[in-house]
């Protein structure tokens, strides 16, 4: 394997790699570092690549091993992360001022419900045990096969299936209970609330009708709604989208809030 070939593949998947690491660590700074570390480690170990998997799977293996070892990946959030972070944001005037500034000045400062759905998935998937979150991301978002995931996280296909099923079941259950976009009784209305703040002139129903998951909410079963949610997540690059600056600012806020919350509750 030549370094040039490796470089080409690495550049081709850099965007996916970045968003994958971001979704595990919830930290922009850690993501930048880990992408760089993955590249350096890949170059260093290129001689040991035996083509037993695709180069993409091999690179994701390196990235997963590096990411799993970070403290921020090990820290698991709680299912009600959006409630905790909303409460913290409400008492933090600077957060909304900064967000509004990004909204008004950044070319990546749009607020779109679709983007917020992907953001919300990142936050809530951090409440799963790490193996379950990694398997779910690799399968549902990055579309790896079960045998490739087994290679990436060095386990059996049976265990990957177990992690996938349990992780997915928990996420389906959490969104069913929380997300007002798919359940009228859902307790979380953050998408519509934030849309009202950042897009005051937009009619919510007009925005929702563009989102298949919200449109199908009344007639589709919860598994199908989760598939539609994953379709939204797959379609969004959290670093490159029109809402990237706003959502990354929000993610940084949530990470800091959750780190404080976990620290406080560990005492």
């Amino acid at each position, binding site marked *: 394997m030549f370094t040039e070939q490796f470089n080409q593949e690495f550049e081709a998947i850099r965007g996916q790699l970045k968003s994958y690491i971001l979704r595990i660590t919830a930290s922009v700074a850690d993501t930048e570092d880990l992408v760089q570390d993955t590249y350096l480690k890949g170059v260093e170990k290129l001689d040991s690549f035996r083509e037993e998997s695709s180069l993409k799977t091999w690179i994701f293996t390196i990235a997963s091993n590096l990411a799993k070892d970070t403290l921020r990946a090990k820290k698991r959030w709680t299912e009600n992360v959006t409630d905790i972070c909303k409460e913290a944001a409400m008492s933090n005037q600077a957060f909304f001022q900064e967000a509004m500034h990004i909204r008004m000045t950044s070319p990546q400062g749009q607020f779109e419900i679709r983007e917020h759905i992907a953001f919300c998935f990142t936050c809530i998937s951090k409440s799963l045990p790490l193996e379950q979150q990694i398997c779910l991301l690799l399968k549902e978002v990055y579309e790896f*096969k*079960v045998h490739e995931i087994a290679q990436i996280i060095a386990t*059996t296909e049976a265990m990957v299936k177990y992690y996938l099923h*349990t992780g997915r079941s928990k996420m389906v259950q959490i969104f069913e209970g929380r997300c007002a976009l798919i359940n009228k009784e859902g307790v979380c209305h953050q998408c519509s609330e934030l849309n009202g703040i950042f897009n005051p002139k937009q009619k919510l129903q007009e925005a929702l009708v563009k989102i298949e998951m919200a449109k199908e909410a009344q007639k589709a079963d919860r598994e199908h709604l989760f598939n539609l949610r994953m379709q939204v997540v797959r379609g969004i690059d959290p670093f490159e989208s029109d809402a990237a600056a706003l959502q990354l600012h929000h993610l940084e806020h949530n990470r800091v809030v959750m780190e404080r919350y976990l620290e406080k509750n560990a005492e």
Partner: protein
Amino acid sequence: MTSNTNIQNGKATTVKTTFSRETSVGIEIKADAPIVWALLTNASDYPRWNSTVISIEGDIASGGQIRLKSTLDPKRTFKLRIKTFEPERKMAWGDGQGNRVYTLTDRGNGMLSFYMHEKIGGLMFPLYAKYIPPFDQSFEQFAADLKREAEIIANTKN
């Protein structure tokens, strides 16, 4: 002594004596042992798939202790110790009054035999035996839930 070689196809049986009661159930499951083992040893996940369990707190690991609430007696919390822990083969938990043993046997061709056996008893058993509800229905439900969940997982798309 009940033998786990005679799989009962999900039907529980109970044998009573003056000083003990033994209930067992066996079922064939089309799934790999690691999947069934993962389901049996992930304490917090039980209520999601097992309709006989309200909650299990603690670690299902060698020497671990758990607090189990069962639908059989919802007001009571059973404090149990993990007494046997042989990954993907055998696990047992229990207290001073009884033990429950789970056994997995690979039958080949992706088939697995699951066997669950519980013996309760002792010298004082005759005094409280009438207060302990029958286990048969709960055992059958446990085995059916385990089979359903394990086979769904085993059939996850590759």
